[in-house]
């Protein structure tokens, strides 16, 4: 045979093989969809802010009619409490667990409560979004930032650094969320303890800070004007409020912003495992991740996602990171000392 016909033959065979493989993949995909439809729903415990969570759920249901998403949204710490409480009573309800406290997943993995599953396409994600052992993966990320009410002060008057917040002129004007409720805030507290020590929070408490629970609440409080500066909180909820026209602006302090990667995982006892896998895959697709970035103001690990122009990119910020293991180990201490300084 001539060289040209040899190449042609190889090309044809390769094409045939590729077609076979693709078909096979499609076959497994269809089988899984059928199984998921039979299961009917996936139960999702998530700390993603409610409108965003509902939006993701609706997108999935539109893409895969016949499989419903049951959204249960509450703070990260509450989610863990729920899961542990239900297990204690032998209730196997939840399929997918998603919180903003990476320490939880260390704990859950240790207790063998997670299923090993790698979502499709996640290989390209940065290392900070992947668990070595393949049990959990970072679905989204946000950073803690300072927010202030633009009606109450100009950009020049606003605090620029975490240390600025200790100034007595902010007495009675600050709001914080609680690490006992929110994983985002637990990360923030630990990161700032690394940065400035516990004395930082002791001094901050002297400014009589208002306490709310969820990491999304400080921005709401600030934009309503109830307090005019938030000392922490997920920047994505502040960004959403800003886009809606509320009088709020975000400051990314120069000392660094605590990065919070929010992992997701499938439980080892999931009552709807196929639906769970289908859903997890969906949430890591470019389309879903792009939606999260566009309308929710979140950061993601997906390399092909583009971000809005009016938000700093992750690589433009000085990031403060904490390891999941340390979060898990010091969780009790974080909550206890916070309560000790702030009262509740």
């Amino acid at each position: 045979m001539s060289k040209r016909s040899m190449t042609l033959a190889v090309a044809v065979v390769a094409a045939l093989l590729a077609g076979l493989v693709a078909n096979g993949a499609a076959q497994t995909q269809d089988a899984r969809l059928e199984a998921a439809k039979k299961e009917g729903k996936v139960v999702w415990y998530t700390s993603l802010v409610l409108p965003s969570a509902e939006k993701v759920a609706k997108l999935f249901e539109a893409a895969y009619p016949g499989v419903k998403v049951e959204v249960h949204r509450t703070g990260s710490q509450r989610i863990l409490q729920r899961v542990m409480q239900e297990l204690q009573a032998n209730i196997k309800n939840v399929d997918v667990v998603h919180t903003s406290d990476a320490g939880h997943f260390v704990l859950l993995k240790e207790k063998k409560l997670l299923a090993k599953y790698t979502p499709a396409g996640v290989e390209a994600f940065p290392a900070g979004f992947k668990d070595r052992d393949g049990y959990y993966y970072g679905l989204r990320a946000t950073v803690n930032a300072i927010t202030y009410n633009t009606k109450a002060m100009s950009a020049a008057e606003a605090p620029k650094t975490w240390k600025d917040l200790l100034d007595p002129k902010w007495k009675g004007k600050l709001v914080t969320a609680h690490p006992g409720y929110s994983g985002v805030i637990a990360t923030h507290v630990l990161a700032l303890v690394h940065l400035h020590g516990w004395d930082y929070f002791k001094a901050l408490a002297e400014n009589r800070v208002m306490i709310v629970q969820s990491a999304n609440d400080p921005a709401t409080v600030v934009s309503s004007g109830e307090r005019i500066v938030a000392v922490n909180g997920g920047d994505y909820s502040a960004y959403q409020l800003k886009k809606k026209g509320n009088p709020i602006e975000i400051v990314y302090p120069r000392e660094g912003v605590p990065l919070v990667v929010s992992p997701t995982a499938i439980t080892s006892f999931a009552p709807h495992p196929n639906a769970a896998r289908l859903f997890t895959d969906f949430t890591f697709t470019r389309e879903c991740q792009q939606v999260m970035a566009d309308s929710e103001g979140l950061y993601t690990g997906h390399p092909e996602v583009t971000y809005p122009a009016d938000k700093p990119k992750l690589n433009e910020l000085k990031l403060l990171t904490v390891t999941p293991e340390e979060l898990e180990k010091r969780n009790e201490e974080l909550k206890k000392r916070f309560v000790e300084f702030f009262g509740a």
Partner: protein
Amino acid sequence: MDRSLPVWIFAALSLVVLMALPLGWLGWLSVSGEHGATLAHYRDVFTDVALRKALWNTVVLAFWVGLVSVALGAPLAWLTARTDVPAPGLIRGLVLASFVTPPFLGAFAWVMLAGPNAGILNTLWRSVTGFGEPLLNIFTMPGLIFIVSIYTFPYVYIMVANTLALIASDLEEAAAILGAGRLTVARTVTLPMVLPALASGFILAVLQALALFGSPAILALPAGFHTVTTQIWSLFQFPPKVEQAAAFSIPLLLATALLLQVQKRVLGRRGYAAVGGKGGQRRTIPLGRWRWPALGACLAVMACAIFLPYGVLAKAAFARAWAQPLSRDNLTLGNFTFTFFEYGATRDAIVNTLELGVMTACIGAVMVAVLSYVTNRRLVVGHQLVAFLALAPVVVPGVVLAVGLFIAYTRPPFVLYGTLWILFLAYLTKEMPVGYAQADATFRAIPADLEDAGRVLGAGRLRILREITAPLAKSGIIAAWCFIFIGVIRELSASILLFTPSTKVMSVVIFDLKEEGQFGAISVLGLVMLGLTFATVALVQAALGRDVLGTRK
């Protein structure tokens, strides 16, 4: 008496299961350690500075709520029951509305009214006076006392008004004609006779304040202090310290039991009905030129409890941004669409609440009807014990009951946690006393003679029940149903510990939404809850022909 044995067994068993089981577990867990019985948990609880502070806060709160409730309830009762203040029916209706409003909804509404910076009243104040400092700060202990009091004073009102209704005018006229001026009469005759009711009302208000969870959670936590109930709740955060929660609950339980004992003795010993011959006509005291100012004062109190909070809830339900004025582009139905169509938990919660409400009310009404009939007609030996057990749950604060139920039903043989059944048990136990009291009053008002007359003529007991007793008791039992239903739909302090994501109820969803700061959705749900409550109240009034407060028109 063979036929009564099954009834007795049924009654005793159900009451034991409802009450003794959870409380038994509670007591046991509070002293159980890894190596047998221990007082370590009690020691932990009472040496922990934070927990001791919570205890102190609760005492302060309860005491002041009692005082303020008396200060509000007694004059209002006197004005409507004894004087010619204009529109007494309106005032009584407003007090009733305050009585059925869940305090945590009032707390929400007042956050929107008197939050120190964004609160509407403070914004108005600042724009009118130009001061920078706010007029009111609801996130304080006085703020919490205020909120709890305006929804608790109806207890004092009811006790005092009902007592005043029993005091014949003769007693005051006799003093007047002997030379006593109006104030002297009030001081020497009216006040001493009403004193037991005042003391009793004070204690009831204190008991309410001790057991509340929602208002402290909304107002105290942001201000940085705990009460016993919020502290018990936070002990359930992960990792849960259930033993400590149990140890912390027992003193609360004992305090409640003690206070109730005191209240019974105060009321029982010198309960002054009119002593003497016939009479008992009550004539009104003319207020003269104080008539309209008195009405104004009453309406001012009710503005705090009803007009302002309901108004701000309505505003927030229809507004995009609740703190901004209600302009054309601030109006939206978006909150409604979000609550009913986009937020999955709401629909389920409303369904759960209605299901639980109806189920608890139906089963509860049947139970209290049977129990109070059996007790009233003395059909079983030891009927006083049955009555005691039926009223006993009032001693247990909701959060303590929840802790007990949690411990009892998250382990074999009955694992009810995670189902609606555990909520059902909590509601049934908690609302049994109010249903029983109403059913008891119903059967008391049906003299046994009516049934005996039928029996003499040859009708059997069952037929008598069907044809004579049931029609007469119908409206009273319907009222009992309604009281239980209202109690269930607004219950929070037990639900907050016993719910799971698939068994949420409306009050829990409202609480969840608070943590997200979703005031629009909260207001919508709050209005739904109020709507359900008032519809049920209207049903009671139609059934009974008198208002829920028990004062005849």
